[in-house]
């Protein structure tokens, strides 16, 4: 099935694989032109191209189900022997679909959300650029090309976070005037964009170091080539560089997926339009790190299986994921800005995914953890995108990013209320009916059954995080929709602003996703089973990783709950119950005033303060990596560059020369006698140096 495209032999399937990422780029390139013709048309063109890209992705699904893969290459940098290519294997096809369809929905949402914005062309340009770059990450067959997409999404993220570059007050995040350890906790969009870009760049730098290390030994960046011949790994392992290389690559994932300790940029990234937050900082880009790990993990696992041990790689992933999940979840409990809560939650949930990927590599049953991670990725993408978009509607309507400025909105915004509950239940992991439940449960199961010595503590953290998740989701819903209307809303109503439902183009997308959360949740187990099967085949065929079928036999539960671990199930259920219950007590039923509760006890209030101040991590990072270097450079500039170098070597030299010129001129007195004296003395001098 090959055809000629631009003189290049191309498989039919391959051409659609290429198109998935090329189409958005083409759209982005023509966007300024279209914007010149008609601002109105840009939206339709953008959505159209996003749809086409998504359809291309969908056209590959059959291939994924057959565990087929397309690997197509063209020449690129011949002089180094590098090729560009697409690699459409089940992993990337499913991911491409997730990205493609969610971004399509968010594009539709954006047509409503961004309506009337003056810079709409720019918005569409960057959104399309983002989609293209993201799909490039997903579909690339080599690390270098992945890095192109990697930086592309970073760039798009930067551009979209600081989309409202005029830095109006309403576009900031954080509480004005609030400081943590002397650092202002209030960020302008342009600042936030920079912060995000530079912080992820730290990760990217690690990633490029890892890439280069691997390239140095393997001579290739290609994923398949790396798997094909593994002698490079033997050499690297012998030199002790294998694990560092992969850990460095994981550094990129840490940065992009906002994992500890590079998590702080994600919160400020909320300065971007909410559609952007939904697409980039919830559904897709932050998942790129997870995706990268999923690309690499089978390779590393296969190497481990072949005797080249790299357990530390998975252990680091595990620890980073666990720490992030707990840390960000805790912070999500106290923040008052709705988008920030969602952002914390995103980071925390990605921590889950990392955690389970780490545990997968450490367990015998790799595919379980792998599937669980991916399943959670998909379900999280759906409900978190939905939640974000809904939050965007709220912001749109209320005009404030603080949940304390909302309250009691359930009557005004019924659809949003319903969809948010549905999606929120997904996040909380409401038993049996939501995707979130099934995916989280499979994570618990995978961790619990891994048999790794750390399984139990990690499991505890996971469950604790689940409790926290349920709690803060309930808190969010309670604060927004329950209780009485806030002063702000009342004031708005008094001013004649009617609080009403969001327009159709906005609620439909998040409606669809919320409904999907429930619908897939209802068939969650079989969905998971399907994924499991696909990945089992995939891992077998591509990496030679065979799963060990020992789990189902040990199951004590009846048929339809096959593959479910009872401990995990119990934990999951109780976590949901405890978290939701606590949330209900404080925020829906409002039986206890949370403020009083916190202040009642010095321990609680201290703890509250610490998590509200983000464990001081942000402030410390600022002090160490922004303030001190700036202070240092200022010092160097003032006391070295300007003084020693600039003044010293320019003016100082000039002065020295001028001074010696004065001295020399001083000897030129104009008195002939002294000249003659010098002549005589000079004669003597010459004679003496001749004679000596």
């Amino acid at each position: 099935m090959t055809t000629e495209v631009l003189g290049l032999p191309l498989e039919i399937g391959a051409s659609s694989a290429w198109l998935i990422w090329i189409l958005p780029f083409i759209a982005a390139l023509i966007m300024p032109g279209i914007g010149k013709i008609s601002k109105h048309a840009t939206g339709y063109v953008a959505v159209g191209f996003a749809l086409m890209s998504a359809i291309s992705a969908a056209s590959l699904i059959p291939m994924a189900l057959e565990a087929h893969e397309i690997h197509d290459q063209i020449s690129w940098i011949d002089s180094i022997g590098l090729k560009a290519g697409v690699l459409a294997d089940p992993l990337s096809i499913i991911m491409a679909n997730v990205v493609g369809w969610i971004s399509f929905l968010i594009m539709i949402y954006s047509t409503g959300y961004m309506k009337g914005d003056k810079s709409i062309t720019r918005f569409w340009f960057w959104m399309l650029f983002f989609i293209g770059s993201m799909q490039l990450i997903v579909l690339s067959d080599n690390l270098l090309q992945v890095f192109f997409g990697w930086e592309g999404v970073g760039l798009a993220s930067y551009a979209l976070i600081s989309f409202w570059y005029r830095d109006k007050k309403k576009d900031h995040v954080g509480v004005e005037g609030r400081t943590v350890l002397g650092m202002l906790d209030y960020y302008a969009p342009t600042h936030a964009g920079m912060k995000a870009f530079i912080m992820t760049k730290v990760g990217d730098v690690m990633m490029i170091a890892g890439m280069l290390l691997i390239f140095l030994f393997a001579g290739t960046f290609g994923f398949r080539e790396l798997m094909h011949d593994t002698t490079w790994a033997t050499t690297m392992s012998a030199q002790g560089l294998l694990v560092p290389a992969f850990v460095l690559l994981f550094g990129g994932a840490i940065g992009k997926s906002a994992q500890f300790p590079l998590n702080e940029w994600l919160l400020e990234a909320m300065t971007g339009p909410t559609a952007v937050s939904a697409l980039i900082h919830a559904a897709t880009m932050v998942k790129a790190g997870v995706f990268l790990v999923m690309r690499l993990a089978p390779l590393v696992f296969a190497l481990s299986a072949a005797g080249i041990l790299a357990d530390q790689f998975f252990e680091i992933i595990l620890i980073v994921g666990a720490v992030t999940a707990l840390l960000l979840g805790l912070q999500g409990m106290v923040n008052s800005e709705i988008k920030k809560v969602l952002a914390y939650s995103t980071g925390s949930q990605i921590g889950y995914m990392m955690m389970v990927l780490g545990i997968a590599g450490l367990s015998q049953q790799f595919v379980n953890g792998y599937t669980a991670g991916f399943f959670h990725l998909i379900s999280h993408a759906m409900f978190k995108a939905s939640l974000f978009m809904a939050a965007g509607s709220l912001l749109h309507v209320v005009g404030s990013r603080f949940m304390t400025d909302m309250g009691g909105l359930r009557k005004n915004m019924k659809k949003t209320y319903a969809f948010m509950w549905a999606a929120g239940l997904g996040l909380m992991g409401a038993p049996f009916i939501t995707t979130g439940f099934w995916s989280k449960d499979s994570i618990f199961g995978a961790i619990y059954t891994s048999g790794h010595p750390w399984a139990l503590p990690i499991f505890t953290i996971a469950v604790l995080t689940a409790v926290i998740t349920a709690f803060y989701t309930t808190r969010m819903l309670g604060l927004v929709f329950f209780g009485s209307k806030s002063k702000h809303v009342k004031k708005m109503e008094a001013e004649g602003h009617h609080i009403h439902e969001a327009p159709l183009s906005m609620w439909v997308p998040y409606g669809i996703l919320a409904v999907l959360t429930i619908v897939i949740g209802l068939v969650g187990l079989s969905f998971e089973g399907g994924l499991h099967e696909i990945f089992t085949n995939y891992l077998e065929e591509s990496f030679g990783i065979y799963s060990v079928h020992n789990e189902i036999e040990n199951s004590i539960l009846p048929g339809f709950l096959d593959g479910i671990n009872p401990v995990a199930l119990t934990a999951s259920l109780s976590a949901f119950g405890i978290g939701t219950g606590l949330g209900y007590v404080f925020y829906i039923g409002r039986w206890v005033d949370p403020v009083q509760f916190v202040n009642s006890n010095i321990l609680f209030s201290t703890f509250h303060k610490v998590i509200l101040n983000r464990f001081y991590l942000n402030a410390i990072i600022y002090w160490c990596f922004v303030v001190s270097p700036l202070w240092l450079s200022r010092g160097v500039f003032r006391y070295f560059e300007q003084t020693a170098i600039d003044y010293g070597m320019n003016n100082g030299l000039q002065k020295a020369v001028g001074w010696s010129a004065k001295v020399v001129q001083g000897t030129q007195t104009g008195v002939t006698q002294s000249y003659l004296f010098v002549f005589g003395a000079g004669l003597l001098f010459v004679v003496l140096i001749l004679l000596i």
Partner: protein
Amino acid sequence: MLELSSTPLVIIAILGTVGVLLPIISIARKEKGSNSFYAVIAFSALIVSIGYVAYQFISDNILPSALFSKDVLVDDAFGGFFAIAMLIVAIFTTVGSFNYMRKKNYPAVYYSLILLSTIGMVLVAYSTDLVMLFVAWELMSIPTYVLVGFIKKNPSSNEAALKYFLFGALSSAIIVYGISLSYGLTGSTNIGEVIHGYATLDASLLPLALLSVGMFIAGFGFKMGLVPFHQWLPDTYEGSPPTITTLLAAGTKKAGFAATIRVIVLGMVVLNLDWTLALGIIAVMTMTIGNIAAIMQKNLARMLAYSSIAHAGYILIGLAISPYSTLGLQGSLYQIMNHSVMKGAAFIAVTGIVTTLAVTNIDKLKGLGRRMPITSLGLVISLFALAGVPPLAGFWSKIVLFGGALDAGSTIWWAPWLAIAGVLNSALSLAYYGWLTRKMYFEGETEKRVSEPKSVIAIMIFSMIFLVGFGIYPDPIIKFVEFAAPTLSLDIMP
């Protein structure tokens, strides 16, 4: 025996006749102020002389250099080289005086003295006998004492002349003293025989021989402006008429080098080679002090005077390393030729400025680039050439010089330091050349153009062509220098 058609004698004949006749004609004509008449005569005499030298070169009548002679004069390429350089300078001076001497007294005597002095300069380079050299030296010097003080109404001219005269008389006495010592040690005044005598000198007499070298260095060094014998030089260059400064800076100074090469370098190689270190030290002192003093000068002529002191230092590098590297003397000769044109052109530019604007204060030269575009262009090009900026002619002589110093590094340890000092100095010198350029071109934007003296323009154009042309294609002049430079080795014998 010296043939009557040999170059030095012909030059004596032509220039001497014209030089002596000019005052007589002026007495006969009994009229004043016909400056250009005498200038044209002098100019044509000089042109005929330079033509004769060139003819001798072309027709291969000139002996290769580094020959000693049984006579007092020798018609060799070395002398011919200097003759051309000196005659060019004399022509510069004469042509530059076309406008400068207008409405001034005694033009006939003025040109006559220039011609006589020119004979002296040329003959210094041709001399192979110390007596001859001394007499030529005096013929070169005495008319310039008069010329420096020629503007009788001008106190600085007189002051300059007095200082110059006192120094000149002292140094010629010192030279005689030096000659007396070397004569006493060797029994002859012929340079060839002196060398022979030195080569077989009794060890106990060596200090006296070195004493005579020291006296020569001091005596010739005065003319060359070597530190510490330089102090008269800025004062005199500043005070004297700028045309005469041209003659002094570009001409007589070079004659000093010719004498030094003939006597000290050629002659004394056979002695202990310690004198080279002395020359090296003097070279470094000279260029450093010259450049440093030049930096803060307010007066253009004075700045150029200091710069010419510095250049004496560069040239001296070549002399100091001459026994160790063939490039040394070549570099010196090359630099001498270039410096004659560069410094000549620069001082003629000063002449032009003085003639039209009557100022030499640099602060008053703001916007000169607009007022006198051609003069200032010529000045700037010669300044950059002096600084050794490529692709101007001055660059090539400097790299030959410094290259020679580095080349000599394989035999003598201190030679590369001369190159380093030279290089740093030429970088330093760019400071004041650049500053002057800045004054002329980047300040005083509102000045209007004034008419420039035609004679000055002619010289500027000539020197620009020379400096740029030989800067881009230096091969002919390099070949000429190679031909003219004597080769030194420790076994040269008459």
